[in-house]
């Protein structure tokens, strides 16, 4: 592997925010294409982070820290990437459901998906069913991903799915859900297509849904 790419890969795995920014700049100056830096540096690094998480070596703190490094590197790369290079894996619309302002988990899932090559459109938190519908019409995503952290707001996932159904959009997208109080059983009960217990498994779920 190119030593520049290796440095980027390692700073992502280490969660070194300043390091990854510096290394990306060095790689660009050395003439490496942005697409290569994305795929072989950032995405490869995040996939290693995901693997370490699966193995129990990494936990949420490491994922958050690596994801933050990924995010700041993406900010540098994004303007340089061509349309085809971003989001080759698929397009995901993501948001925390109505009534819920907790977005740390949702942000992490978004970054992990981005780190796995998805194009992620983040609707933020407290997203109403109407907003999900509008954005689905506008962006035509492959997947709509919803998050809730509170026992009191997870019920709003059901209403969002129902609303998508009534708007005639349900057949056009896959829906995946997650968040602390959410379970596989709940996902089945409300008619979601997929459930992920954590940000790493969210990547696997998203990939499986599009296969």
């Amino acid at each position, binding site marked *: 592997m190119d030593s520049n790419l290796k440095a980027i890969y390692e700073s992502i795995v280490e969660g070194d925010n300043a390091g990854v920014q510096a290394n990306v700049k060095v790689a660009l100056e050395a003439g490496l294409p942005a697409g290569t830096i994305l795929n072989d540096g950032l995405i490869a690094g995040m996939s290693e982070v995901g693997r370490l998480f699966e*193995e*129990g070596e990494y*936990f949420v*703190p490491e994922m958050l820290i690596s994801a933050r490094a990924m995010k700041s590197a993406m900010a540098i790369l994004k303007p340089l990437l061509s349309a085809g290079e971003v989001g080759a894996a698929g397009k995901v619309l993501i948001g925390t459901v109505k009534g819920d302002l*907790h977005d740390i988990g949702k942000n992490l899932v978004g970054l992990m998906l981005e780190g796995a090559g998805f194009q992620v459109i983040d609707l933020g*938190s407290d997203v109403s069913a109407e907003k999900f519908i509008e954005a689905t019409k506008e962006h035509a995503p492959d997947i709509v991903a919803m998050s809730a952290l509170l*026992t009191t707001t997870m019920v709003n996932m059901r209403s969002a799915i129902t609303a998508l159904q009534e708007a005639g959009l349900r057949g056009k997208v896959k829906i995946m859900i997650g968040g602390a109080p959410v379970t596989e059983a709940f996902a089945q009960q409300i008619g979601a297509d997929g459930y992920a217990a954590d940000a790493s498994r969210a990547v696997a779920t998203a990939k499986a849904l599009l296969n």
Partner: protein
Amino acid sequence: MPKKILVNLQPIGRRVEVDPGTNLLEAAQRAGVEVVASCGGVGICSTCKMRVVEGKVTSPTLTEEEELGQELLAAGFRLACQTEPLENVRVEIPPESLVAGQRVQVEGREGQVSFDPAVAAVDLDLSAPSLEDLRADMTRVNQELARQGYPPLTGSAALLGELSLFLRRSGWKARIAIRPGPASSELVSVLPHGARIAGLAMDIGSTKLAIFLLDLQDGAILYQGGVMNPQISFGEDVVSRIAYANKGDAERKQLQERLVESINQTLAELCQKEGICQDQIVDVVAVGNTAIHHFFTGLPVEPLGEAPYTPVVADALNFPARQIGLQVAAGAYVYLPPNIAGYVGADHVSALVATRSYINNAHTSLLVDIGTNTEISLIHQGRVLSCSCASGPAFEGAHIRDGMRAAPGAIERIHIEDGAVRPVTIQGQPAVGICGSGILNAVAEMLDARVLNDRGVLNGKDARVRQVNAKAEFLLVPAGDTGHGRDIVVTRRDVNELQLAKSAIRGGLEILMKEADIPIEAIDDFIVAGAFGTYLDLNSALRVGMFPRLPVGRFHQVGNAAGVGARQMLLSRAVRQEAERIVGGVEYVELTTYPRFHDVFVEFMYFEP
């Protein structure tokens, strides 16, 4: 192999997995919970009774029908030794069935307040009516009140009638408790001449309830004690209880009734012990977080469960205690100080009031009350900035592999020396789990002993670190030395839970400082309130980075400040006004939508090397 059944024991907060065919008494014992079973579990006494709140169990035996009777059985009570769970169950163990009470903190550092209670006692010694003196009974009373400097009496016809009957039976002597106002005195209670009047102050926590009975003539504490909040059976954290209450009016009412029922029961017991009657309890102050405040007063809680998490009532409340079924004097009121926001409630206001002796304009102070939600206030140059951090239930012992609440047998401290681990448990009993202060201390010790690195990863080379199902864990107490015959460990996931909790608290604190635009070192007084805050080891909190490294002398662990504030508000109307004044100027900072919160939160995730 048949599937294991999960038994959730409340309010002690222990969970245990058992094989089908295990009865509830065996399950409790296996979990290390000591239950009274006078007969040794053969069903001939009823000391091990428990209430099955959720899940299917075997049908009542004939013994149970005999020992408990239909009424108790209908209410869900069962004999633990006769009842086997058929699926995952939740069981409530009543206090009388527990051998040793859980530790409930009630004390707190007292401050000086002006003595100015809302209710006064007036002794009446009147002359009887005669053909020469045809004044009405109440005219007689009012003229005597005027002579003593009080405005005339108002009150319900029933209570005024009771006063008349009492005067006529007792030779025209009585003591009345009145709530004096500018134009009239409201009759609160009719008592024998010279009887003591008392007030009730309560700090209603999500898990524990601290109760104080105070003499309203000299301010002395007559009784203090604690009981568990019975609402735990409907959800361990307030959000689950809100979800339960949202099911319907009946469920919401149930949460209120169970709480009031428990308070009344405690009052009845303590009145008997102190030799007073409920008519002598003439005023009540209650504090709690916003959700508890709403449950207690019967307000709807839907708005608290969904963004933007606004309270139904923020202003102070003062209403007749009988309206919510509190068994105190007929005319007594219950006062609740104002709430700041959906997740910064009247209990935090009460703590602010109680710690105001630390707070003067020359000082910059920080007040932290740690719980599932941690409330923080920064007092700086006349400003008060407050926020609420989602620190999670780790410090309550939840989400921790061997976690439990602070109760006998909980490990509260550990010492690691040359690879040997020495645990210290509450009341010195054999270890059955780790409480919140124990997990904090354990992580700090493990960092110092290099069992943990700065990321929170366990050192695989340490002799006590082992891999179970490819997950690393640190052996704290081996099975042979524990109270339940199973290993007690700290897992990587437990450390992770602590990291999330401590950076939530530290992140909130840092953002308040940023909002006020002052550096951390500017904090003159760092006040740590609440039960967990009292028992936590300060050095551990500094070691893991939950608190900033300020000189140790600036920290004050003040105990149950909310309880102290409730007592002060019971004794002084001026303190109530102070609470209302403080809240009027609070600047509330919502962290979940704060632009840099995520970054600050992540920044404090790791430990210092």
